[in-house]
């Protein structure tokens, strides 16, 4: 009796292993993903359609009542407005500043490592801790910022306080803090983008007599555009979730007045943990998710049509 020797490639065990072995390696990650990401997302969607949902798990029925509630809630609508103001100022401004600073950091100058570290600092410090020290800097009477402005003859600004029921400067503080917070990450991404640009392009342009402004606007920025778009998408997503930046300045409240500085995540958190209105919070989360989704799709579309 002759035993037919199978080649390795056609051996049944080999084929089985090739097909299913990778799945086994994926299982631990897949379980984690299911439990900690997929399940909560589905659960939030379900929760948002349960009316009168309590922590106990009881609910009164299904419906879109939660959505009706949040979309007519004065505080939540103000939260949407504040969040949009925040996103639409913080993201573009921090991007512009970051492009300029990344470009400066990309120069070959002595001692540049010190600057590069300095710009990285906000990323490795706790934004809450830094925020608390900013709270003193923004103090109307004793703060260093009003003192500095005072040197230029600017009257003290009530950054963190309110006058006659109005607190217009509160959001400015948050915006400045947000810009400061986003910049290191943006700068690092942009810097790596800049370092990927072949220096030969600059040489070629310089030989032809291009000024540094011309090189920056006509070569650096267009070649950096894909990275700029990437950072803007990432930053926009994180800016829509603004929460940490609000906490340190008014001892955990959102603004000096009765929560004049609601942001969407702040409102969701308060509704969920303090008011225990789980269905409302879930519906608000879905609204936030849809807004972020729309902006991301929009930016992806722009990126596709303006990429070289």
């Amino acid at each position, binding site marked *: 009796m002759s035993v037919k020797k199978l080649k390795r490639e056609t051996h049944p065990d080999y084929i089985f292993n090739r097909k299913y072995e990778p799945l086994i390696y994926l299982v631990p990650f897949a379980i984690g993903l299911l439990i900690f990401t997929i399940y909560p997302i589905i659960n939030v969607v379900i929760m948002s359609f349960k009316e009168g949902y309590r922590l106990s798990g009881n609910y009164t029925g299904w419906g879109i009542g939660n959505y009706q509630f949040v979309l007519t809630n004065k505080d939540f609508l103000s939260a949407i407005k504040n969040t949009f103001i925040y996103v639409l100022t913080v993201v573009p401004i921090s991007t512009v500043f970051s492009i300029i600073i990344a470009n400066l950091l990309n120069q070959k100058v002595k001692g540049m490592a010190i600057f590069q570290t300095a710009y990285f600092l906000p990323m490795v410090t706790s934004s809450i801790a830094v925020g608390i020290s900013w709270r003193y800097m923004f103090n109307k009477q004793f703060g260093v910022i009003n003192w500095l402005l005072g040197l230029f003859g600017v009257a003290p600004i009530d950054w963190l306080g309110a006058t006659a029921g109005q607190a217009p400067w509160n959001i400015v503080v948050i915006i400045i803090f947000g810009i400061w917070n986003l910049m290191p990450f943006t700068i690092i991404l942009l810097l790596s983008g800049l370092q990927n640009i*072949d220096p*030969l*392009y600059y*040489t*070629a*342009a*310089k*030989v*032809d*007599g*291009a*000024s540094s402004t*011309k090189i920056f606007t*006509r*070569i650096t920025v*267009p*070649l950096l*555009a894909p990275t700029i778009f990437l950072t803007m998408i990432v930053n926009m997503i994180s800016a829509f979730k603004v929460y940490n930046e609000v906490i340190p300045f008014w001892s955990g409240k959102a603004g000096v007045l009765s929560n004049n500085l609601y942001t969407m995540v702040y409102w969701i958190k308060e509704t969920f943990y303090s008011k225990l209105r789980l269905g409302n919070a879930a519906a608000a989360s879905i609204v936030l998710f849809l807004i972020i989704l729309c902006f991301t799709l929009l930016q992806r579309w722009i990126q596709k049509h303006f990429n*070289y």
Partner: protein
Amino acid sequence: MQVKIEHLTKRFGDFTAVEDFNMVFDDGKLVALLGPSGCGKSTILNMLSGILPSTSGKIYFDETDVTNVPPQDRGVGLVFQNYALYPHMSVLENIAFPLEIKKVPKEERNKKAEEMARLVHVDQYLHRKPKELSGGQQQRVAIARALIKQPRLLLLDEPLSNLDARLRLEMREEIRRIQLETGVTTVFVTHDQEEAMSISDKIVLMKNGVLQQEAGPQELYDNPANLFVANFLGNPPINNLNGYIKDGYFVLEDESGKIKINNPNVKEGQQVVMGIRAESVAIKDGDHDFEATVKQRYTMGKEELAFLNIGNQTIRVYLSSDYEFKEGETVFVKLRDKGVFLFDKETGVQI
């Protein structure tokens, strides 16, 4: 424009890239800077463009000393080895960019760019992006971009080394055609001797930052100044036979043969290298110079390449393929006058 270089030296720390280089590039000529990698040829090019400052020495464009003039004020057009076309700009924008920098109105510069595109034969691709072009087309665009501001000097850094063999042949003829049509003084850097030989008016051969010889391609091939030049040019490479001079004869180092020398400059007992071009050997009965054994033969179509053993040394020679002989056979070798050189073994200088 005539370019004159005087005592040009470039050092990077302890390393001398170019040593006391003197040269005149004549107006309207195409000159090749040739040499193995690291010989300093690109360094000279970069100093001509002004990208790289020189350590000492002077560069004159016509009568003007441009040694300390920045690149943008030198009026040079530069073509990079990998072209450095701006990937986000169309062919038209790329070619027009040097004029855009000079703030030439859009209509005028586009007209000029189209003219340039026609000269280098890329006018049907004006609205494509560089990545949609082949290597040869990218090269043409790069040349057009370098020429649009009507430079007084065109510099090409290894212009053909990123192309495949077929395109290389085509593009080197194109470079010559464009150069002749525009009449611009051109310097190009290459490590490929065939490329340099085929299109240049003059070849400047470098080694380790030192000029070896400057001459027309044929002159360089027919009369190499030293052993390095002789070895660098020619395919297959020139044969080197070691030996010494005795009683007016060149004697092979293993004393297996000798040949009468009619060279008044040789000294008795001098150690020499005889350079023999592959085509300078004939198989001949009777009046011969050496006896040789056929080691191997390769047919190359119109002719045959044979390895011959002379004593314990081997030479490569071309033989016409109608000549019948077998491997292992002994043949009689006669050297022609042309293509046979004697070099001093120590200095390498031709005697």
